[in-house]
């Protein structure tokens, strides 16, 4: 016969189980969360809002078409940073303190400055992280084992441009024009070193504020240095048109080039005929690349949802690629029973056979970045950037 104490103990365990069971059951159905800290206001609001839309579409697509992540719903959290490191840090702290560690499995941040500021804390938390930044320093799995760059770093982009220059003209004279920001300075030492190694000469360097109103001194200095190619870095589509227009006015013959953040159609619209031939690196698909499955799928998906089908910017495509790839890594981690932060890192590192419906060559990370890009050239007549190369492998 059961003793009274034994009976009470068993009753207690039973009661606890009865109370706890539904809790466990709901915990299994609880969503997996992806937080984004985006510049929804401020000078980069254009990129932040387009990026948000890419995440919304990506997450909706994962939930509604792909059936979520291992039976759980993928939930998107969006916070505004205003492109301000202090505000972004506050948003990050708010999110990580509010959300449970077993649910918040990925954070997507904003800017080189914010990402560098958060990096040590992210490493300490073991939190999978990526950002709008392609800074070289972030692609360092030894120091930051959970940070990934979803594209080539700015150094890689410079490498792609320099290889193209070498193809076009062997011993070319190059000028570097960049903003006095982390974004602008990031790839400059590498570009100088590589240009020299490839037998080119850096004949001029211009360090400028990130925004200004007159490009005459810059263009006149360039004209005196007489480069064959000018690479612009660290601007957000207001400075490039100004430089291109001034260069055209002043009869500068050099060919202008830029990296990912200059690869948006607004550059062509703003610079007008001066944009002709402007060459950029870009590693996703454009909204008009309808042969890419992701574009075709998203057009159909947006139509079904009653969403606007007009041109979606490059920042939309970038966010969409991240959302799809993260969901894929999470799904694989869930399949292996490892849907944790460490599991997501592990499966991101094993995502080499996935290409995000053609949004990228593949997600084979090399030192936690994706060293693949294409080169595009601006056509004023078409009002768009046209690919001039296939995928270039940079590592």
């Amino acid at each position: 016969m059961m003793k009274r104490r034994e009976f009470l103990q068993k009753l207690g365990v039973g009661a606890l189980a009865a109370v706890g069971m539904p809790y466990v059951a709901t915990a299994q159905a609880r969503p997996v969360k992806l937080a984004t800290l985006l510049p929804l206001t401020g000078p980069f609001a254009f990129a932040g809002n387009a990026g948000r839309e890419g995440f919304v579409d990506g997450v909706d697509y994962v939930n509604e078409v792909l059936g979520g992540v291992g039976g759980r719903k993928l939930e998107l959290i969006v916070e505004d940073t205003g492109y301000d490191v202090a505000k972004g840090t506050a948003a990050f702290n708010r999110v990580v303190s509010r959300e449970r560690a077993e649910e918040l499995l990925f954070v997507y941040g904003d800017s080189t400055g914010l990402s560098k500021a958060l990096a040590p804390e992210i490493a300490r938390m073991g939190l999978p992280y990526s950002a709008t930044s392609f800074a070289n320093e972030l692609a360092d799995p030894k120091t930051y084992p959970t940070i990934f760059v979803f594209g080539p770093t700015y150094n890689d982009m410079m490498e792609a441009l320099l290889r193209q220059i070498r193809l076009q003209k062997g011993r070319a004279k190059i000028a570097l024009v960049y903003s006095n920001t982390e974004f602008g300075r990031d790839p400059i030492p590498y570009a100088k070193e590589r240009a020299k190694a490839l037998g080119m000469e850096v004949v001029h360097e211009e360090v400028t504020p990130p925004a200004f109103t007159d490009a005459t001194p810059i263009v006149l200095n360039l004209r005196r240095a007489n480069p064959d190619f000018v690479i612009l870095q660290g601007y957000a589509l207001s400075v490039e048109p100004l430089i291109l227009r001034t260069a055209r006015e002043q009869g500068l013959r050099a060919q202008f080039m830029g990296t990912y953040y200059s690869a948006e159609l607004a550059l062509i619209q703003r610079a007008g005929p001066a944009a002709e031939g402007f060459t950029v690196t870009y590693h996703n698909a454009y909204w008009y690349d309808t042969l890419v499955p992701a574009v075709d799928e998203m057009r159909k998906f947006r139509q079904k949802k009653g969403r606007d089908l007009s041109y979606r910017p490059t920042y939309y495509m970038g966010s969409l690629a991240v959302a799809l790839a993260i969901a894929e890594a999470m799904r694989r981690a869930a399949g292996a029973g490892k849907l944790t932060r460490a599991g997501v890192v592990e499966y991101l590192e094993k995502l080499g056979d996935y290409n995000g419906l053609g949004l990228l060559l593949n997600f084979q990370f090399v030192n936690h970045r994706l060293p693949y890009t294409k080169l595009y050239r601006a056509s004023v007549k078409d009002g768009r950037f046209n690919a001039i190369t296939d995928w270039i492998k940079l590592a």
Partner: protein
Amino acid sequence: MSDLLPYLIGGLANGALYGLLALGFVLVYRATSVVNFAIGEFLLVGAYLTYTFALFLPLPLAMLAALPMAFLFGLLVERGFVRPLLGRNVVAVIMATIGLAAALDGGVQLLWGPDLKYLQGELPQLGFQLGDTFVPSRAVWNLLLALPLGLGLLWLLRKSRYGVLVRAISEREVAALALGIPTARILAGVWGISALLATLAGALLAVASGVGHNLVFFGLKVFPVAILGGLDSVGGALLAGFLLGVLEALSGRYLEPILPGFTEALPFVVVLLVLMVRPYGLLGERQIERV
């Protein structure tokens, strides 16, 4: 000299924009003692107004059509934000302009959306060859619009009845009220003109670099220009605009190679140096306060 000339032309053309914006800023300060921290947003609103009209009008007409709207906007700001605080400590109005700046930033994004925009169409080409130097069309337009407008305003303030009334109010508001001067109406007009000047500067800027939030940063330039010219000197603002424009261009030519990035700090260094010698700015009024 032929090497220097294009730099000077570029500097003068850019300085014309500085002068235009500073003129509106100083006008408000002189008439009301209010430092308008929302001047960059005035420029932003002006550029977006021009953008809206340029959707269905040729660009020169769109710029023209935006001006009365901008004037109206200035009147509304005065009526909504400034007049309710009339008679209060001037710091209250200054704080209100900081709030206004934030509200306008958000309002512009709500109304026009966050995506990148550009002005459709171009201004007629007025560029020409001057010896070996090409004078770009944008430089001609900047100078052509800013110089007559600036000098005309100066003349208006000195000689016209309206100008005398503005000066009377700025000297002593209470006395002006006692004499039956319609102070509120005239001050509203000053805010309107300030918004109109900012709109013109915004439109000229947006022609080359597009319409977007980045334009508000240009508003920051107004502070060194206005302080350099003398916060209460309308003529000083125009002069200081040209001066800083040219100094920046020359710094770009001669100092940048040895001190990369220095031009960004140049306006503030110049202001510091000038204020050490003339604390009231180049043409500002020397004020003696007896304690």
